[in-house]
């Protein structure tokens, strides 16, 4: 339970349960799933059999047929095409969140560890502060000010995820800084900046990367939740969370696929990111030992 200061990435209570599956063949399967997801998102216009926003009210809630492999939703839109296009916003949002929070967190963490003293105190306390405020509430507040869409949730989640990376980086950067090789470079007259960028960062990068893979899964889940609440990408654009929201009414009429198909996509993506992140973190922890 007290692994917060070790070189192992900070694990938010949640996907930690996937840790057990991080070693075996499931790791490879998960990497393949993620690669497939990225390909699907990139090639969406080519792969999707229909226009994801094309209405066909005569084909409302058509079941699985040869024409529509996963059936249609209430407005007669092809569910498979919407899932394929939904992978784009589904991955783009978390990608932005992870990119911003990783950059910002690494910067803050390294500066805090390298400078020490009051800079460390100020940065660490600020990160603790942001850490204490739930990201979901921050996002809801921001949406209420600037309106729904991808922007407000992504900004709020980036802010909320920065301390996860920042605390981790601060911890491992402090350990690295204490190692003799850093001192050796300093004695040779390299500037602090050069030593950080050329030598310290490459050494902590794998651990940060493992944390980012895990954060990707969490961010995907959080952004999908916001989308489900109606605060993300607005209909008719295809988005997994929004599709579940729209599919709720169909569920009450006995049609499961409009809501269950995007649900399955979200769970699959989250599980795959969790397994890959946990697997990487364990590999790094083993190598360190």
């Amino acid at each position, binding site marked *: *339970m*007290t692994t*917060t*200061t070790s070189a192992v990435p900070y694990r938010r*209570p*949640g*996907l*930690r*349960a*996937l840790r*057990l*599956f991080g070693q075996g063949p499931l790791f490879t399967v998960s990497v393949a799933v993620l690669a497939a997801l990225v390909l699907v998102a990139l090639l969406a216009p080519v792969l999707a059999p229909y226009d994801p926003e094309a209405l066909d009210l005569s084909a409302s809630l058509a079941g699985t047929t040869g024409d529509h492999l996963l059936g249609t939703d209430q407005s007669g839109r092809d569910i498979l095409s919407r899932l394929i296009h939904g992978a784009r916003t589904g991955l783009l949002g978390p990608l932005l969140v992870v990119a911003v929070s990783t950059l910002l967190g690494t910067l803050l963490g390294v500066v805090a560890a390298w400078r020490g003293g009051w800079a460390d105190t100020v940065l660490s*306390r600020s990160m*603790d*502060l942001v850490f*204490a*405020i*739930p990201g*979901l*509430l*921050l996002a*809801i*507040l*921001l*949406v*209420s*000010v*600037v309106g729904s869409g991808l922007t407000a949730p992504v900004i709020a989640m980036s802010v909320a995820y920065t301390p996860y990376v920042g605390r981790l980086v601060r911890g491992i950067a402090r350990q690295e800084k204490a190692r003799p090789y850093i001192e050796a470079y300093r004695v040779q007259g390299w500037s602090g900046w050069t030593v950080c960028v050329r030598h310290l960062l490459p050494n902590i990068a794998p651990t940060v990367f493992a944390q980012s893979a895990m954060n990707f*899964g969490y961010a995907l*889940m959080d952004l*999908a*939740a916001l989308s*489900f*609440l*109606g*605060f993300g990408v607005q209909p008719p654009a295809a988005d997994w*969370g929004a599709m*579940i929201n729209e*599919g*709720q009414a169909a*569920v*009450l009429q*006995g049609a*499961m696929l409009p*809501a*269950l198909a995007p*649900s399955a996509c*979200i*769970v699959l993506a*989250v*599980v795959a990111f*969790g397994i890959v992140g946990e697997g990487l973190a364990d590999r790094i922890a083993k190598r360190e030992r």
Partner: protein
Amino acid sequence: MTRYLVGRFLGLAAVLFVTSLVVFGSVHLAPGDPVSFLLHGRPATPEAVAALRAEHHLDDPLATQYLKWLGGVLSGDFGRSAQYHQDVSALIGSRLTGTALLVGYAAVLVAVLGVTAGVLAALRPGLLDRMVLVGTGVATATPSFVTAIALVSLFSVQLGWFPGPGGGTAEDLSGRLHQLTLPAVALALSFAGLLARVTRSAMLDELGRDHVEVARARGVAGPAVVRRHVLRNALGPVVTVGGTMLAGLLISTSIVETAFDVPGLGSLLVQSVTAKDFAVVQAITLLSVAAFVLVNLVVDLLAPLIDPRLSLGEGSS
């Protein structure tokens, strides 16, 4: 010890102060004039605009505005809801029971399901253990709104055991609890999965300890060893993690309440964002953060009472 306590309370004060600044400042963050943001396209007479300016003290300097707003908040005055034409504090009071019942119900489920599954998995290695591991793995990776959809389609549409979303509110408590069963399960499941994992590993840690071996060798009966020597010692991390989950439940409840149309604070928050009813959004955000931080603090302070081996300030980074 005193230093630790003072530090924690200062931290709490800092979080609340910054949150209040963010919540207050967000009106001014909005593009355009605060009045047009607060009205949000609703038609208003010049008198109404003047009333709004007076209510939000918009003609005062920013610092004075903040202090007046904060003074109101501290005395329970969160302004008026534009959507319901009612005082926000009264509105929140009327929705509080829904959320309290749901979160309480879910917390009981988390504790019962999580601890039972964890204890069983630790005591019965093999098939049962594997099943619990896979089940909890899936449960933690499934967002609550996905669980909600699955539960509705199975238990209210197919089997008809529980009412689906939007069936009105039952009068008596037992009817209310029956209605809240599916929402509570949807809210509890991923948290229960994690608590089961924590319970399992804490139990396994204790089972391998010397004192358990000694108790067994002394001839203490098996169930008594588990109860008095294993479970009791494993309770520390279980209670700490379980306590912080209560804070998590308070936040996730808005998603589940929306999915099931439960009249509570969370669904009110979501509706108010959609309806641009900003006073309500401000009030619920502020109260939720306060509740979240307070619960976490209380858990950290109570943990050493449950497990005296933990001392205050240890492991709370």
